[in-house]
């Protein structure tokens, strides 16, 4: 999965996400969760961070489930069922499970993408396959690699305010304002540096990373299409699934 062309993977997962958004089948959601997790654990590298992100997804799924349960539209589903000693309509229970598993399916394919895609290859592939103008791509890449320093600077600015006895809450505007002034200076400086090295897209550069669309990418695309087909098929299943 980590050897698939990032542009092809983006397009495939975007379509998959779109199908998922309109999907009404619980089985189809489960299919995506299983497939996503399977390929995630086959991928090399540590997945510790996936656990904490997955925890957030689980919470979001639970919250949607309970909202459906207690605040479902009246009259959805005919008979009431007992859940946690409370009577809820079967329709609410079904839509709760559907929405909860949908969030988990989103997270499963999102995590799979995040953990099998290198950011440098992703940007290179967007330039070469999606024809993204290089100045946008390199600008984004610069900001991305700058984000660590940015977070550090933000902490420093907040500390500087506190040293001066100015109270700064989590949503205070003062540190944000100082950071925006800094951002203006930085963007001017980085732009000058990038222009001097020819990263402004005015010349044709050669590329160190050359992601190509290879036969295995077509196999992957066909696989994703098959999954989408299976999901659509699931929507024709009779009953509540």
């Amino acid at each position, binding site marked *: 999965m980590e050897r698939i062309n990032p542009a092809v993977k983006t397009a495939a*997962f*975007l379509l998959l*996400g*779109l199908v998922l*958004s*309109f999907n009404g089948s619980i089985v189809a959601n489960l299919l995506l969760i299983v497939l996503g997790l399977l390929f995630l654990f086959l991928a090399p590298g540590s997945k510790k*961070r996936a656990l904490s992100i997955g925890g*957030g*997804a689980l*919470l*979001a799924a*639970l*919250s*949607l489930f*309970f*909202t*459906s*349960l*207690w*605040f*479902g*539209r009246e009259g*959805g589903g005919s008979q009431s069922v007992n859940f946690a000693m409370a009577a809820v309509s079967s*329709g609410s229970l079904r*839509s709760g499970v*559907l*929405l909860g598993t*949908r*969030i988990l399916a*989103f*997270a499963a394919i999102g*995590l*799979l*993408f*995040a*953990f099998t895609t290198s950011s440098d290859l*992703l940007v290179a592939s967007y330039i070469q396959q999606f024809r993204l103008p290089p*100045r946008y791509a390199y*600008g*984004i890449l*610069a*900001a*991305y690699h*700058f*984000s660590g320093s*940015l*977070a550090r600077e*933000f902490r420093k600015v907040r500390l500087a305010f506190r040293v001066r006895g100015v109270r700064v809450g989590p*949503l205070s*505007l003062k540190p*944000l*304002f100082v*950071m*925006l*002034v800094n*951002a*203006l*200076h930085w*963007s001017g400086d980085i732009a000058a540096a*990038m222009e001097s090295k020819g990263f402004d897209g005015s010349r044709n550069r050669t590329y160190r990373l050359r992601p190509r669309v290879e036969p295995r990418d077509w196999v992957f695309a066909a696989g994703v299409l098959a999954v989408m087909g299976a999901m659509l098929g699931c929507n024709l299943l009779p009953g509540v699934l």
Partner: protein
Amino acid sequence: MKLKHILFIAITAVLFGVFYLGTTYAGTFLTGVLTPMGLGILGYEPFYGIWFMAAVFITYVIQKPGVGLIAEMLASFLEVLMGNMFGPIIFLSGLIQGLGSEVAFAAFRYKKFGYPQTMLAAVGCTVFSYIWTGIRQGYHTFAPGILIAIFAIRLLSSLLFCGVLCKLLGDGLAKAGVLRGFALGDRQKLTVED
């Protein structure tokens, strides 16, 4: 667009992301507390406006058609790079939120930039994103009361963060004289010289 502007947009998007990071913890906590009551869906709503800030702020500062859309697309690109939980579908969310903001400024033909425009942009982002999350999270299965609550809290958040804060931040920067080369700063200078 100039490289300097692209970089400013991208850095601002990261900055709002960092600014927003603290609130995600609050949102997660709130979601956790509210979940058993079925109100967990409201947990992140008070902070929704922060997601739209890039579009409204950048349009207010650069004042050109399409920059809000570009800002949201760059912001979602950054989120994908940083490994967002939802993956590439974020591009679609960025596109929809950016369009919500653009529609509001386009209604004034990109000629007027003030509170009415930033407030309308805040409403635009709310309405557009509401339709999109409505599809993804199956709002049609929920009771009207909770749907109104979601919309109202998101709208208030958006009006505060985009309608008011973005304007205040932009005006502050212009007043500080650091917005040379940006439409908002240059316009401010003209009025001073008059």
